[in-house]
């Protein structure tokens, strides 16, 4: 296997890693504010992809402008799910309960999607899908670049939202110390609801990026969520920076193994890496060692 191939694998890994980082960021944000693992995140990405697909094929709205519709839609969905289910998960056995509840949500979404679209694989298409740029001795598909840039922009925006705005402070406050947040007049419940909304809204973009680079069908969500969970845990739960780093790390490993060894072993290495890291660092790469403190 040539050096270019390896180089290309690494570049691919970084670019796709960016997309996964975006999707994982939503997951880890929701975990941070709700202490809930949203198994439905994968299904939501697929839902987002289908929304783009529908707009593109039926309404003829191109992908990127379509986001202006899908993002708000997903935002509302997220808030609804938070209000109806997540906030009702009881405190004891919250870990187990949250996973079961969101899994139920996931299969409902999957069911609705397969009723609406059937189970054939589809893929998003756009004029720029076949274009590519030549660099470092290989061709780099535009769609990857676009997806990556989009993801990067959103991550920056998310960061700015959390660390530069009043709302962001509210989120971080209610995340760190609920009582104190109450005492300074933060409406913790509303804050959480919006935060979850945001965490889900970015899956719309994740869906676009995922759907443009991957073929998907209603149950693509599971493979996705398992990877996202791995990334989030590896990065350290609740740490957005960690999720980003972990995403890129994992995807690069994945693609390099695929090229250097075999694509069929790549996903296995992906999960093995997680288990390995955790057996040395139970709190994940960037997690505060709060994992053991219950």
């Amino acid at each position, binding site marked *: 296997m040539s050096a270019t191939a390896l180089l290309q694998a690494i570049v691919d890994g970084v670019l796709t890693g960016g997309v996964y980082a975006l999707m994982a960021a939503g997951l880890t944000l929701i975990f941070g504010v709700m202490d809930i693992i949203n198994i439905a995140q994968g299904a939501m990405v697929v839902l987002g992809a289908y929304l783009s697909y529908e707009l593109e094929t039926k309404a003829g709205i191109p992908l990127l402008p379509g986001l202006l519709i899908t993002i708000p839609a997903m935002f509302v969905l997220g808030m609804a799910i938070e209000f109806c289910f997540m906030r009702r998960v009881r405190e004891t056995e919250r870990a187990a309960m949250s996973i079961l509840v969101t899994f139920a949500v996931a299969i409902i979404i999957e069911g609705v999607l397969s009723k609406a679209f059937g189970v054939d694989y589809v893929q998003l298409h756009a004029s720029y899908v076949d274009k590519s740029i030549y660099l470092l001795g290989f061709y780099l598909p535009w769609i990857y670049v676009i997806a990556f840039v989009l993801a990067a922009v959103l991550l920056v925006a998310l960061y700015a939202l959390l660390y530069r705005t*009043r709302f962001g*402070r*509210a989120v*971080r*406050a209610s995340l*760190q*110390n609920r*009582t*104190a947040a*109450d*005492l*300074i*007049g*933060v*409406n913790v419940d509303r804050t959480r609801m919006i935060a979850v909304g945001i965490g889900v809204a970015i899956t719309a973009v994740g869906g676009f990026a995922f759907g443009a680079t991957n073929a998907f069908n209603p149950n693509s969500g599971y493979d996705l969520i398992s990877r996202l969970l791995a990334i989030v845990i590896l990065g350290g739960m609740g740490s957005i920076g960690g999720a980003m780093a972990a995403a890129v790390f994992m995807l690069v490993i994945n693609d390099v193994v695929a090229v250097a060894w075999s694509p069929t072993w790549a996903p296995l290495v992906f999960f093995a890496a997680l288990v390995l890291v955790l057996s040395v660092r139970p709190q994940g790469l960037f997690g505060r060692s709060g994992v053991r403190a219950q």
Partner: protein
Amino acid sequence: MDISGVSKSFGGVKALSTCHLEIHEGQINGLIGPNGSGKTTLFNCITGYERVQSGQISFRDTDITNARPDRVFALGIGRTFQLTRLFARLSVLENMLVATQRHEGWLRSMIRRAGSASERNRAMELLDFVGIAKLAHDPAGSLSYGQRKLLELASMLVADPSVLLLDEPAGGVNPTLIGHLADRIAQLNRAGKTFLVVEHNMEFVMGICHRVTVLSQGSTLVSGTPDEVRSNPAVLDAYLGGEDDPSTPQARQPVRRPMLRKREVLGGPEPLLTLRGIYAGYGGGDILKDVSIDVPEGAITCIVGPNGAGKSTMLATISGLLRPRAGEIRFDGRVVSGKTPGQILDLGIALVPQAHSLFGDMTVRENVEMGAFTIRDQALVRKRLAAVQELYPIVKERADERAASLSGGQQRLVEFARCLMLEPRLIVLDEPSMGLDPQTRQIVFDMVALMNRQGKTILLVEQNARAGLKLSSHGVVLENGTVRLTGSGREVLEHPEIGALYLGGAAAGAAAP
């Protein structure tokens, strides 16, 4: 058991600094000291729940420094928790049987039924011994607070440890039960058990202990017989708070004047905040019972009282974190009881809670700005921030450091700064000096006084009764969730019963003649 030079600190706060302590075999050793003096931390270090950073702990000359909890227990050292911890979903009897130690292979342990007849009988005996045998088959979660304490003690005894560490066994337990508990401990001690008891109830400690050690600022202050300790001025200071000229109530001739009804005493300005017949508590029942007080505008009112008197609960009720079950709270003539914390905040009541309430991962500036969260006018926020920085230079100096990196005292000041951002009319402080060294404590108190001079009405709860009352124009003494005394700061401070409240009946007796 011997503990030498143990140190432990969390973030900026030093919980234990080179602390020494010997536990004498076959004796009941008392461990007392004001809040935040590191008693519980010491327990955790001994029993392996927290790692000590330096120093050594040895038990019968085996080194148990940083041993895992199960090993420590296996060596015969049992402990109870300040907030009782039980296996809530197991029955009382099952709770007892968990601790039964039997050295046997896991296979046997899996086949053999939990609790052989003999173990059950022993368990029942012990339950009977602490007087809760009747409840043996109820789920532990349904027990009352006092019963939990007893069960926790009993569940340890099953394993028959030679040393028992009790963390506030009498805390929040009603007097009759306390007496019961004291008898049990004495009885066990006669049977050869060694005890280390952390307790705030002096009557209790002084009553049963052979030796008492006083912990202060995370290191040993005094150690000796109850009488020695009691007559040691430093001890009373540790409790009532240090003074430039250390002297005890016994030394001072108590001012004898009849306690007047408070309204007459507190003539002066109109009360800004009034509580009338407040009943409140957490799940387990009322902690506050028919509490009525006035907080006069522009004054500093200090609430003192022993642990578990309901001081923090009262503040929580005022700030809206806890809804009163009955009674009415008026602020500036308007009823505030039942409003949300946010609403109450908007009305101008700011609470600085007892627990460290900063957002550790945010910078100091962000923390302070969070204080003005409800203000959307950024210009105003900036103005206020400037003003606060004027008052608290630290907010400027350490602006961009993570709040968690500050020391306890500094964090306190930042908390003050934060609560000033809304320019509240009433500032409620819960134990502002808790866990602070004398100098910082002084700075904090100066700040309180300063804020008061700038026209803020202040209501504070203070363990350090003397310093608190000296600072205040009005004092309220709370005990068992009811108002015991009220008066001007000085009256309350010099009232003989204060000593009694803190150091138990004996001290009161000493003060009486």
